């Protein structure tokens, strides 16, 4: 008990002695966490969105001629030989027409003048979910174009490709801000702690003479780093949360956020970011302790 009281009191003393720098450090840690978490939040939402879009990936091969029933198994085998496919649906002219009129519902009168032949027959290929790589999708779509009577392949891959570029770019930004986070936290915290150590150097020397154990001297410094990590990360995450709330309330209704089903981090991820912040700052303080205190 007494032990804990001393460690805490000493930590408080340290913070007070260099409070100006401590506040600057806290702000730096907060900003780094905010920056990183901001990009990371967008990134995770993009990933979820693209996963959802990926679910809908299907390749439609429009044909200029109906495929006869007996030809289908051979064609299906040919496609399956090329790549992993979840299912293949053959759509005849009549089926396509039926679908469209079902989709139009009450408006289906507009089709009255058109015969059931005006829609082309098609093969709908649903690749396995593992096929999420854009180059593979376009390879697949190139292959499908070589099938007999294939007139056109629609894969929506153009749009997916742009989305993919953006996700990649965002990933780079996340990595960059993550790196910045690591650097700023460990270095800034270790620098601040160096100031604490320097401001207390005379005292530490005397403590050593009086027989202070290494726990007595080091734990307050370690605690200082931990505290910086905890407060900085909490503030950063809280700031992001309020920003998110603000934007969500401002742009409520059908819009960007709704389209992407934009959501805040789940609790586990929030806790992980907080924990990572604490760990990084603690590591930073360990650097200083190892470098400047020899006991």
């Amino acid at each position, binding site marked *: 008990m*007494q*032990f804990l009281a*001393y460690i805490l009191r000493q930590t408080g003393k340290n913070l007070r002695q260099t409070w100006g720098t401590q506040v600057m450090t806290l702000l730096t840690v907060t900003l780094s966490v905010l920056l990183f978490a901001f990009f990371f939040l967008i990134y995770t939402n993009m990933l979820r969105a693209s996963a959802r879009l990926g679910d809908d990936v299907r390749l439609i091969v429009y044909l200029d001629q109906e495929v006869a029933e007996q030809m289908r198994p051979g064609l299906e085998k040919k496609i399956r030989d090329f790549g992993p496919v979840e299912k293949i649906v053959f759509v005849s002219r009549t089926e396509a027409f039926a679908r469209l009129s079902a989709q139009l519902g009450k408006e289906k009168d507009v089709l009255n003048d058109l015969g059931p032949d005006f829609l082309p027959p098609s093969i709908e290929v649903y690749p396995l979910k593992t096929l999420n790589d854009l180059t593979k999708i376009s390879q697949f779509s190139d292959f499908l174009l070589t099938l007999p009577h294939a007139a056109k392949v629609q894969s929506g891959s153009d749009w997916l490709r742009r989305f993919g570029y953006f996700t990649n770019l965002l990933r780079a930004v996340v990595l960059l801000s993550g790196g910045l986070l690591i650097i700023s936290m460990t270095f800034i915290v270790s620098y601040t702690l160096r100031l604490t150590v320097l401001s207390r150097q*005379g*005292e530490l020397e*005397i*403590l*050593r*003479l*009086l*027989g*202070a*154990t*290494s726990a*007595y001297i080091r734990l307050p410094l370690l605690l200082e780093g931990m505290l910086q990590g905890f407060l900085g990360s909490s503030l950063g995450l809280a700031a992001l949360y309020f920003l998110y709330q603000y934007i969500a309330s401002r742009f409520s209704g059908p819009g960007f956020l709704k389209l992407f089903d934009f959501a805040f981090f789940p609790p586990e991820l929030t806790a992980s970011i907080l924990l990572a912040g604490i760990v990084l700052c603690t590591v930073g303080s360990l650097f200083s302790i190892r470098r400047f205190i020899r*006991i």
Partner: protein
Amino acid sequence: MPRDASTDKPLVELVNVTKIYPPDVVAVEDVSLRIYKGEILFLTGMSGAGKTTLIKLICCLETPTRGLIEVAGRDLSRISSAGIQRMRQKIGVAYQDFRLLDKQTVLQNIAMAMEVTYTSTKVIRARVDELLALLNLSDKRDKLAGELSRGEQQRVALARAAANGPSLLLADEPTGNLDPTATELVINLFRHLNEKNGSTIVVATHDPSIYADTEHRVMALNKGQLSAHPNRSPRQIELFEA
């Protein structure tokens, strides 16, 4: 406190200890010395004789160039740094240069010694007040150490060394800046610690007035070499050789 030199294991034992400061300053030369539990020992010698060096060797602030030092049966050259810290909690040292924190109060300075052993604040308060009363410093408790006179600082350093009721108290020139009245207080503090607490006390000094008519052992250092003090009775020389 009476002792039995023949059976007791000494609290501090130095065997052929030599300390040479680089490059070639021989501060302590081939010193062998046993200090027994409960003893008061005076270490005399001219300036530069090696008194401070000897004290620093015993509290591990310096390491001997040659020879063996044991404190409480433990070889200091084989003790871990954690072990040294634990040992220092039981050894009170009043340094010749005091080593106080000028920007902290007298209370804070003395309390530090007890805080490192996780003593409760209440006990620390009571102990500090007791020590300051013994050394006639009660009115200085909340003054900054840097604002005290040399003589007052000296007594604060002593109070800090005595705070934990150490088993071994090393006092380096404890009366150098004191008038006879204050010197008397310090001697009384030593006696008090020795009798009430069983503390072993080593006093390095060149002030003959404090060891002139003592019944305790007096050793002289001369250019790093140790011998029984020339003025001492044969009984004390015999004790030294035991």
